[in-house]
């Protein structure tokens, strides 16, 4: 039985379309909560006094903290016919530390869609690039992430 391709023209139309931006304040409390949640006692993520004495001069966010900051509304959605999703992976690139008190503006765009058969049946892979820009207008980090859509 051949599998109907799941990727539609509408889905492909979402490639390259950037979302609206959303700006978030990096809060000390949120950093602390995140560090505790992941179980990382590093003083630069947990102890404001120690962090101020460090080369960063302030509390900084752990490397994946930016996951807690989402983009603005999508201008074009990838609507998969499948109801379940899994996270396939992320590639982060870091340019500047993310400090308590920073304001990070987040945008995302779909950069690729593909499908193939796998252990969960037919799977649609959507790759998105997220950009995190700080209040100085500098890119603090980028994230390339892949989500997998499948029918359970």
């Amino acid at each position, binding site marked *: 039985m051949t599998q109907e391709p799941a990727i539609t023209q509408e889905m492909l139309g979402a490639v390259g379309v950037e979302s609206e931006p959303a700006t978030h304040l990096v809060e000390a409390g*949120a950093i602390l*909560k*995140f560090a*505790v*949640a*992941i*179980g*990382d*006692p*590093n*003083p*630069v993520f947990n102890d404001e006094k120690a962090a101020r004495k*460090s*080369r960063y001069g302030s509390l900084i966010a*752990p*490397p*994946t903290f930016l*996951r*807690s900051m*989402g983009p603005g509304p999508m201008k074009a959605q990838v609507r998969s016919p499948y109801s*379940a*999703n*899994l*996270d*396939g*992976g*992320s*590639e*982060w*690139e*870091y340019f500047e530390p993310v400090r308590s008190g920073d304001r990070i503006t987040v945008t995302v765009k779909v950069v690729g869609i593909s499908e193939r058969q796998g252990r*969960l049946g037919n799977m649609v892979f959507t790759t998105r690039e997220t950009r995190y820009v700080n209040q100085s207008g500098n890119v603090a980090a980028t994230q390339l992430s892949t989500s997998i859509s499948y029918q*359970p």
Partner: protein
Amino acid sequence: MSQQIYYEYVREGMELPVLVKNPTTQQLVRYAGASGDYYQIHYDQEFARANGLPNVILHGALKNAFLGHLITDWIGERGTLKKLSAQYRGMDVPGTPIYAKGVVTKTYDEAGEHVVECDIWLENQKGEKTTPGTAVVSLPSREG
């Protein structure tokens, strides 16, 4: 956290100190709250099973965070993380230990920095590498 590591000390093939994690369902709830990812496959057993999963599973991003913890511990305060990647190949469930491991694959000078590349991964109790990844860092020199 141990002492600062310097570039001169690093060799290809060198193993990073192993970081042991013991995720619990409570940790998954804490992580959901801290990250804003409330997808029910991470804390609602019925929902997870209805989605074809064996149990509630760890957020991929939490596993990514575990790898981040491994590498930021290793590079110390004066090291800089440049790139971090992780692929969520195998599922991990709470209630069993996970080992974050790494090995140095390359060292080189580039654009005035001392760069080190590592293969990093999470391994479960059976020794299966559920989450392969890589990290690129720059390290300080002993010369200051």
